[in-house]
Structures are given as structure tokens and as C-alpha cells.
């Protein structure tokens, strides 16, 4: 616990409170294949000295949290005071990188999680009623989307929804619109990512619910049948209450999973239309100049987000647990 959870969080929080030293520039002549010219470079000796004096960098307190890349307090205040309608305010907020990422992440989390629970439940009910001889096969095939590596799965779908791919082209014919492109519009990209998310995670819910169905109390079911309950009523009043603790469990795991949505955005090259908290951390950390403090700040905000998101489920689990003892 201490080594793997507590220390990394401390290190991320510390990093988010500091920024790099002021760089000392000098001008020198640089020559290459294409000729010589004056260029600005960093005086590394002078910077080194600054770094030795303060190895962590410049302490700036919580400024990282309130700059434009994160909570953007001054931009939000300006947007609030200048906007004439709520729509305009929303547009201004959506234009800020962190809020844009939060909006997509929340929309994704709160559409994918319920959908995958519902679909997973119906797959489980369906599989539970088919003949035992072929059940093994069906279970295996239903699990495939979860077994495929997320990045590979999203790449496969990326090519299929291309305007020259099988799904993309079929949609164009279906809607008789040769310019229809799932990748070119923001709402359609979001829809694609959400469909992918459900496709990828539904098997997880299915497996859990299927396991739960094996422990269904047969007595209760039979007495319900004798009382004349229809199939739907048996599901509604016997099966669903029996599986409720598992629904909580799946919701908990999937909320956490979906909140850190990342692979499909990379796989679908979707960063033009959708960014998530994880993808903006990744983009800060990659490339030639890494923005460590910015990435650390976003990470801390993500951790806070996870805690807020999970608190209702955690409280519920805590109460259930407390009841029994």
C-alpha cells in the first residue's frame, strides 16, 4: 500500500507544486548542411547552477492548478462575465483543455457504464437459457471483445468505419450521403467511441452476471412460477434483486475503468474531436518537451475526480458491509 499507492501520489502532488527554473539564454552561431545562422540556445552551465540550488524547481504553490491548462480560474471568470447566454458560456468553457476533457470523460463514463450493464445482463440471461451443448462456444465468442487488446480492437474498428471501410461505406449507402464520415464530425466520433466502449466492456458484465445466475435460488423461482409469474416478472422480482450486489460491483469497476478512457482515443486517432483526462496527461508527457508539472497537476485532479465519482458507490458498499457485521 505505502510503496505502490501512497508514495506515487505524494510524488505527483509534490511535482504539481513546482515548475522548471527560469532558463538562461545565450545567442550562438550554429552551422549545418544548410548554412550558418544565429540561434538562441539555453546556457546550460547557468541553468545547472540554478538547478543545484533548488533541485525541485521553482515553488509556485497552487498556481499550476488554476492556470489555463487546468482549472483556468481567470478564463472561467471572464467567460462567465462576458457570456450573454448559457450556450456561449458553455462554448467558452468547452474551449479550455481540461474542461473539454472532463466533459467527454463524464459523458463517456455515464453512457457506457449503464449501457454495458444492461447489455451484459441481457447477454447473460440469453446465454443462460441456451442448450448446454453449445453454451461453451457462445460464452467464448461473447468474451472475444474483452480478450482483444483495446488498442488492436479500436484499430480494427477504425479501419472498418473509414469512409472506404466496410461499415463506413455501408452507412454512406444506407443514408445516401457520399460525404458522410464517422471520423469527421464530433458527435459521430463520440458515438463511435461510446459504441466501442460498450462493445469492449459488455463481456465483463456478462461474465459476472452469468456467474451470479448460476447461484439463483431455484426454490424461489419455482414458487414464483407456481404463483403464475411470467418470465419478465420472474426476472424483475427474483433475478434482478438477486444480482443487485453484482451490479454494484460491476458499476464500481466500470466507473473506474471508463473514467480513465484512453486507448480508443489513440486507436481512433480521435484527439481532434475527443480528449479524456488520461489522453491529455499522455499528450503532456509525450513529444519532445515534456510538461511534467502540468501532467502531475492533471493527475492529481483526476485522482480527486475518481474519489468524487466513486463516493456514492463506496458509501453504499460500506453500508452493506456494515449491515452484516
Amino acid at each position: 500500500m505505502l510503496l505502490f499507492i501512497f508514495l506515487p501520489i505524494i510524488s505527483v502532488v509534490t511535482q504539481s507544486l513546482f515548475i522548471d527554473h527560469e532558463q538562461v539564454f545565450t545567442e550562438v552561431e550554429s552551422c549545418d548542411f544548410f548554412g550558418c545562422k544565429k540561434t538562441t540556445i539555453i546556457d546550460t552551465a547557468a541553468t545547472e547552477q540554478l538547478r543545484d540550488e533548488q533541485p525541485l524547481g521553482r515553488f509556485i504553490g497552487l498556481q499550476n492548478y488554476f492556470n489555463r491548462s487546468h482549472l483556468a480560474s481567470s478564463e472561467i471568470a471572464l467567460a462567465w462575465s462576458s457570456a450573454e447566454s448559457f450556450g456561449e458560456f458553455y462554448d467558452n468553457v468547452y474551449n479550455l483543455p481540461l474542461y473539454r476533457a472532463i466533459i467527454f470523460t463524464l459523458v463517456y463514463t455515464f453512457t457506457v457504464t449503464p449501457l454495458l450493464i444492461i447489455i451484459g445482463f441481457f447477454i447473460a440471461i440469453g446465454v443462460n437459457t441456451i442448450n448446454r451443448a453449445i453454451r461453451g462456444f457462445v460464452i467464448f465468442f461473447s468474451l472475444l471483445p474483452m480478450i482483444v487488446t483495446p488498442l488492436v480492437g479500436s484499430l480494427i474498428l477504425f479501419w472498418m468505419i473509414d469512409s472506404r471501410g466496410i461499415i463506413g461505406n455501408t452507412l454512406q449507402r444506407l443514408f445516401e450521403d457520399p460525404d458522410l464520415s464517422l471520423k469527421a464530425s464530433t458527435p459521430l466520433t463520440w458515438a463511435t467511441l461510446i459504441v466501442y466502449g460498450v462493445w469492449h466492456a459488455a463481456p465483463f458484465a456478462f461474465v459476472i452476471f452469468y456467474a451470479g445466475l448460476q447461484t439463483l435460488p431455484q426454490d424461489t423461482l419455482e414458487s414464483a412460477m407456481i404463483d403464475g409469474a411470467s418470465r419478465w416478472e420472474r426476472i424483475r422480482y427474483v433475478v434482478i434483486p438477486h444480482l443487485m450486489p453484482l451490479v454494484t460491483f460491476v458499476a464500481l469497476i466500470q466507473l473506474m475503468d471508463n473514467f480513465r478512457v484512453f486507448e480508443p482515443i489513440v486507436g481512433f486517432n480521435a484527439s481532434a474531436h475527443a480528449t479524456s483526462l488520461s489522453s491529455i496527461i499522455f499528450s503532456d508527457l509525450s513529444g519532445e518537451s515534456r510538461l511534467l508539472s502540468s501532467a502531475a497537476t492533471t493527475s492529481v485532479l483526476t485522482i480527486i475526480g475518481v474519489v468524487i465519482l466513486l463516493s456514492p458507490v463506496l458509501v453504499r458498499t460500506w453500508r452493506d458491509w456494515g449491515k452484516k457485521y
Partner: protein
Amino acid sequence: MNRILKSALIATGLMSQSIAAYAACGIESGNVNILGNEFPAIQTVGAAAAACAGDGVEIKTNLTKEHKDIQVPSLTSNPAEYTAAIVANSSIVPLMNDDLIRPLDDLIAKHGGNFKDNQKISIGGKVMAIGFMANAQHLVYRKDILEQAGVEEPKSYEEVLAAAKIIKDKGLMQYPFGAAYAAGWGLAQEFNNMFLGHGGEFFKDGTAMPNINNETGVATLNVMKALTEYMNPDFLTLNNNEINAEWKAGNVAMMQMWGSRAGPLLSDEGTAPGVSENTVLAGALLVGGGSIPATTLWWDGWTISKNISDEDAEATYLALINGIDPKIMNDEVATQAVWMIDGYEPTPASAGVFATMASGAKPYPMIPYASLLHTALGNELPDFFAGNESAEKTLEDVEAAYETAAKEKGFL
């Protein structure tokens, strides 16, 4: 022949090979580990350097597309994970910023090497890298389609737009233009090209303050937007690989492409009939009535890490000198790049880069904060192309995002 005799023969064969290599490179001891980008020319250099491996000399290479992400952390550790990094004029800058590579003057004085003077890349009077190839983005076009449309080879983006309109109106192709406009590095690079073509300067004189939110920036975005009308509507997700695939499928008539990727376009392999023989590599395009081509010049070269022992640095130097020796040149290698190495004869695949170099294009700026602006452009420009906001607003966002990042890095 019995088994023992066979294995003895094989062992002798292997030993004599390694002795030959050892003698050829002159490395006595040390470890060499080379990090670099992954494309055929760099693989050739890496393989030639690795041929120096032998008695007590271990040579490893890690050639990967992710080299830019791992070079700074892996060279910061002491001793460094890699003894050498193969860089371009953009990726050498972060290594210089953090003082992670060593001057090569003492090694050149001691060991020399079979390279030309203009391959030395010097910064502040010290040789920091040895270049081996040049690269640039330039126009590639289909001569048959342009003939059918009745237009000459375009020299400027305005002519490309006119030609694209004719090709589309005549129904020859649906999306006649292609370029790597995928959100991120590629889109930002196209902005850089077009901005330089309009005569722009990225930063206010001698400072790290951005200078793109102005008429030049708006004009740049407007030309790019006009071009996207003639591009596959998925353009914000299409990188060089996908654009090249579109080209090979015969779906594109004109495109902006890297010289280092031109070789495969001229070969029949995996290409629709009639495409490769009609593919012409031309120079870079002008834009907005300017005289500077809308492109940037690039070199690729190798550097040696600072945080390693002198023994390893010498071994690395000798291995890499062998990697760029004129003797690596043959007919296949010659098509992989525009080599700066002696004995290189230009091939048809190099025509575009040479035309671009002759036309007065500018090199990609080697400025400590250029990559931050590049990243900010890559993150903020897609909004404009997705039609969510005006050019002025987008450029304002780019400057704001850049300034936030530059403050964090201590540049502002």
C-alpha cells in the same frame, strides 16, 4: 563430415568475421547502444554500426518511432541508457536544452573519420552532431491526371487549389489533394510550413513570445482550410502512412509528402496500376505570392551522450563513423534518402528534396521553445478545421496554450 568438425568450422568462420569487423572499426572495448527513429535510411546506418560488434564490444540499437519520447529521460540517467541518439534538427534541441550530449571535437581530432566537412553540425563553435541525410516535405503529383485536367505542374498552393477544382469538377477524382493533416504533430508541421511560406516569424524578435496571432497566421489557416475542401473528409485522422496508402490506391492527384518516403511511391509494389509510373516528385510549393517555399529543411544525424564513460564514447563514435562510411552506399541504400555521404549519386527518389533545397527553403527552427509552440499548435488547430471556431480565436488559443507551457518550462 562429423558434427564436431562442422561446429569447429562454423566457430572459426564466426571468429574470423568478428575479427575482421573488429579490425575494420578499430574499437578495442566498450558498449554501444544507439537510439533512433525508425525508417529505412536509419536502419541502414544502425545495421552498419552494429557490424562493428565483436570481442568485448557489444553494440545494440533501438530504432523506434517513440524515440522522441524516450530520448530525454534515458539520456538523463547517469550512466545514460543509450550511448548515442540519432536525431533530427528538431529532436536535438531537447537534448541540448538539458545538456545531455557531448561535443565531438576531441573524438574527431583523435579518430577522424570518412565524412565531409559540411556533415559536421556545430552549435556555438562546437561540433555536436554528424549529419548523414537531408529531408524535406515537397509536392508529389500524378502527371496523367494533371494532363487530363489540362493543367501544368503547380508551383504554388494557389495553383494547386485551381488544379484541384478542375480535377474535382471534371469528375476525375473526388478528393484530389492529400497531406498529413492528422491532429497533432503533422497538422502543426503543415501550419509551420505554410506560415514560413507566408514569410512569418514564429517568435517576437529574440524573445520566447509567440508571434502567430496576426494577419500572417490567419492567411496561413485560410489557405489550409481551402485545401481541406479537396481532401478526404477524414483528414484530421490521416497521417503520412494513410495518405501514402491513398496515393498508392490511386485516390489522390497531388500531395505534400516527405522526401524520405518518396522511394516506395516510385515502386510498383502494392500500387494500383498506372500510379507509380505517373508519379512525379516536384519541389516545394510557394504560397501567398511569397518567395520562400512553404516547407522546412531537415537533417538527420547522430549525437553522443554526455553521461557515459570516455571508453564507451570512443566505441560509439567509431561504430557510428562506420555506420555512415561511404562504403555503405549501394543501389538500394541510395534510394532510401538524400544522403550527405560521399559517393552518393542522386536517384529519382531524391528529386523532390534537391529541388526544395535549391529553391531557398528554410531549415526547421532550432530554438529551445519551438517544440512547445509545435505542440500547442497540434492541440489547438483541430478546433478550427472541425469548424468550431474562427481563425483568430484559434490562434489566440494557441498562443495562450503555448504561454502556459512556456511559463512552466521557464522560457517566459
